């Protein structure tokens, strides 16, 4: 059966290639730092399950030290000049989109095939890892097409991958780091603490006040934790269920669904949601690392107000 393990083998290979490409980039004065950073991630993907918790913890600390001490550089030199790329774009035409579209199409058709045919019962792919495994299959297919059609050298693929990886830099592991911070927050009992604080703040308020505190609590706690998933169980236990559903008679489906979506408005406004807000800023080479968040505020605030209205009018007045 194809499980996440095999995907991690592939990911380890990708990060090893970023290490190789970074080491080859003589234009980067900090290339050895970049190389070590990606090599450690390759080690994590390949051998993470054998390193033990302390071993993994030390690996994390070295990654952080490399980034924190400024030993890795963001950005690396262009590998092809603009005129070259424009000439190539003219020569290859719209077919250039094809390999890029192979990856989503594989995910789309693969999911359909897997769910609608007996493939599911054959046990080829671990059902919990289908999406990610199909992503891996799509990437391998796209790479094969690129090599067969454009005939780049092997090292060209290595250099291009590491050019992009280095333009994102340490931000690549930030989402994973934040997820482990969430694990520590939970282990230190932060969820219960925040729940107790919020619960104590409202002895008993009117329904509209309770709805406001519930929605704003979701937003603030989501902004702190970086995702609404961690905030939801806490806010549901503190306000959603005891006050909104039990004492005020709210519709639990609305309280649940729209409560979560209010949290998503918070996700739009926090750097802690790094893979949505910080990584894209790096990926698109924005000057301001908070540029994406800045662009999202004016959507998030009216949308939060809309969600509060949906909670109040959809959840209570029947």
């Amino acid at each position, binding site marked *: 059966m194809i499980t996440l393990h095999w995907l991690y083998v592939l990911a380890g290979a990708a990060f090893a290639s970023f290490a190789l490409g970074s080491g080859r980039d003589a234009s980067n004065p900090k290339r050895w730092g970049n190389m070590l950073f990606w090599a450690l991630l390759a080690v994590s993907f390949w051998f993470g399950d054998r390193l033990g918790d302390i071993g993994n*913890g030390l690996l994390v600390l070295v990654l952080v030290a490399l980034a*924190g001490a400024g030993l890795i550089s963001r950005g690396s030199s262009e590998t092809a000049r603009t005129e070259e790329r424009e000439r190539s774009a003219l020569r290859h035409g719209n077919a250039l989109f094809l390999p890029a579209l192979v990856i989503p199409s594989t995910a789309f058709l693969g999911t359909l095939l897997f769910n609608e045919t007996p493939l599911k019962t054959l046990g080829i792919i671990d059902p919990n890892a289908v999406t990610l495994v199909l992503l891996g299959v799509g990437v391998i297919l796209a*790479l094969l097409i*690129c090599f067969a059609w454009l005939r780049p050298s092997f090292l060209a693929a290595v250099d291009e991958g590491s050019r992009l990886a280095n333009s994102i830099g340490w931000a690549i592991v930030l989402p994973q780091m934040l997820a482990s911070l969430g694990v520590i927050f939970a282990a230190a009992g932060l969820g219960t603490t925040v729940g107790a604080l919020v619960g104590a703040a409202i002895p008993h308020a009117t329904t509209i006040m309770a709805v406001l505190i519930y929605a704003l609590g979701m937003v603030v706690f989501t902004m702190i934790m970086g995702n609404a998933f961690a905030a939801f169980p806490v806010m549901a236990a503190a306000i959603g269920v005891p006050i909104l*559903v039990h004492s005020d008679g709210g519709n639990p489906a609305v309280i649940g669904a729209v409560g979560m979506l209010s949290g998503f408005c918070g996700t739009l406004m926090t750097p802690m949601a790094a893979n949505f807000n910080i990584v894209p800023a790096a990926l698109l080479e924005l000057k301001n690392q908070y540029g994406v968040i800045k662009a999202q505020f004016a959507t998030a605030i009216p949308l939060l107000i809309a969600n509060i209205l949906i909670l109040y009018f959809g959840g209570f007045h029947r």
Partner: protein
Amino acid sequence: MINYWPLLGIALVVLGFALRFNPLLVVAIAAIATGLLGRMPILKVIGTLGHGFNDNRYVTVIYIILPVIGLLERYGLQERARALIANVRTATAGRLLLVYLGFRQILSAVGLASVAGHPQTVRPLVAPMALAAAEKQHGPLDEETTELVKAMAAATDNVGLFFGEDIFVAIASILLIQGSMASFGIQLTPFQLSVWAIPSAICAFIIHGARLLLLDRKLGRRR
């Protein structure tokens, strides 16, 4: 007696981000401080950090896509995306992103959230197309406008994803809501929950869509 000291960990995160220290460093220091304040021994803190990191490797797997995108960029993918948009006379940055918003919401609503995303579609296709359209409306873009258009491209992807995916019944967040509610003895079906994601999805399309059309007016005005 509840131990309130770990709350200082949150304060460290907020402070660290506000002062723009390296985010990795901020997160690691906050994690260790929170663990210690929660009365965990230092080795246990490091172990928990390592365990969490190892368990969450799937978050970082998406970057296996970089060599493909990088190769295609070398052969002119972004230039091609720009040329394609330059030939569509009615294309504007706002309209283009509006169409993308709708597609992203619908695809996410039918369970295809991972078909698009920042590395897969925004960087190689959507952002260069939006920039090309903006140049047609506005003439050469200054740095501030370039940043704005790119940031709106990324923002549009996020809004489309967040306010589409919960309409799909088998997404993690719907299952989490169902599970949390069940732990309080409230039985809900995923369908009941996903139906209630639709009003918010419509509001998201209207609100963000209006902003995208305003972006067009702003771009047009400075021509």
